[in-house]
């Protein structure tokens, strides 16, 4: 039986979601997306450069029949800005899904959770499928869920930091509390971070810098695909309990010379 991820009634066979930012070139991005096996791809909403129309559009490089676009509200510092950007993203992409970000601090890019919850409530009312980027706080995640979020997306560590999951216990508690899909968004640095997220029971992992910023983004994208799959399988398989002392794997009987 295929192990599908379902968010707001839409199913995905890949549990890895990837971004489109910071790639050295569009062709590297295209190859990395391919290697990642991801089906959902995040994009940002920005003003068109009126004076210089020579630049190609991002959409020239994304096959939208193959990838599902998730517009974000990155860079928004108030609920109002985020809601405005979400509406623009909906018109540009013709889907009602949004990765909702309401940033509270410029240096850490940590979310403003009060504004995030409020924006979630209002966008859900406007018919959006809201996937909020949030702190790794179980209470905030529960409030987002109550506000109608289709998934909760706690950060593992600050965006682009590559530190991996900093608060493993919180992530475990969020898993236990959540009735909506849990996507670990931000902070992944390497494959083991993605595996750990999945082993803790996350339904998916969203990342950008970990792939785009790697020395070989295409190879890292494949590593992340395998890591997410491995972590998922390990979670489903059920790990052994941790013990302080050894338990022999080989029989204790029949030893030679005893």
């Amino acid at each position, binding site marked *: 039986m295929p192990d599908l991820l379902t968010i707001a009634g839409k199913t995905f066979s890949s549990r890895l979601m990837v*971004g*489109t*930012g*910071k*790639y050295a070139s569009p062709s590297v*991005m295209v190859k990395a997306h391919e290697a990642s096996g991801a089906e959902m791809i*995040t*994009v*940002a*909403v*920005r*003003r*068109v450069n*009126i004076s210089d*129309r020579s630049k190609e*559009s*991002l*959409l020239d490089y994304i096959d939208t029949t193959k990838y599902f*676009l998730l*517009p*974000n509200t*990155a860079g928004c510092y108030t609920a109002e800005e985020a809601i*405005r950007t979400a*509406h*623009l*993203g*909906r*018109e*540009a*992409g013709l889907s009602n899904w949004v990765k909702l970000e309401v940033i509270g601090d410029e240096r850490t890019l940590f979310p403003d959770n009060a504004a995030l919850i409020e924006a979630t409530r209002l966008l859900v009312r406007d018919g959006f499928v809201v996937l909020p980027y949030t702190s790794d706080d179980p209470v905030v995640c529960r409030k987002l869920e109550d506000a109608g979020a289709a998934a909760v997306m706690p950060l593992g560590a600050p*965006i*682009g930091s590559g530190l991996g999951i900093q608060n493993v216990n919180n992530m475990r508690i969020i898993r236990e509390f959540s009735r909506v899909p849990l996507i670990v968004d*931000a902070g992944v640095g390497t494959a083991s971070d993605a595996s750990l997220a999945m082993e803790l029971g996350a339904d998916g992992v*969203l*990342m*950008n*810098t970990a792939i785009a910023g790697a020395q070989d983004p295409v190879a890292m994208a494949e590593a992340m695909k395998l890591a997410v799959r491995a972590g998922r399988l390990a979670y489903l398989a059920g790990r052994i309990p941790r013990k302080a002392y050894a338990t022999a794997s080989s029989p204790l009987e029949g030893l030679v010379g005893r």
Partner: protein
Amino acid sequence: MTITLNGDPYEVGGPLSITELLTKLEIDARRVAIEHNLVVLRRTMFPDTVVRDGDRIEIVNFVGGG
């Protein structure tokens, strides 16, 4: 007349539709979203929405992001 286009003053001859403005700017209407005086427009409204002196227009598209 002068409009505010993506935050900057922009001169156009006279009132025109959003579709005409996009044509003038050589922008593919299928790739952008537009806000007209803080109201996000449905794509189907582009031909019938008239831009007048002093209007504020935002034209956005998708760029790389995480």
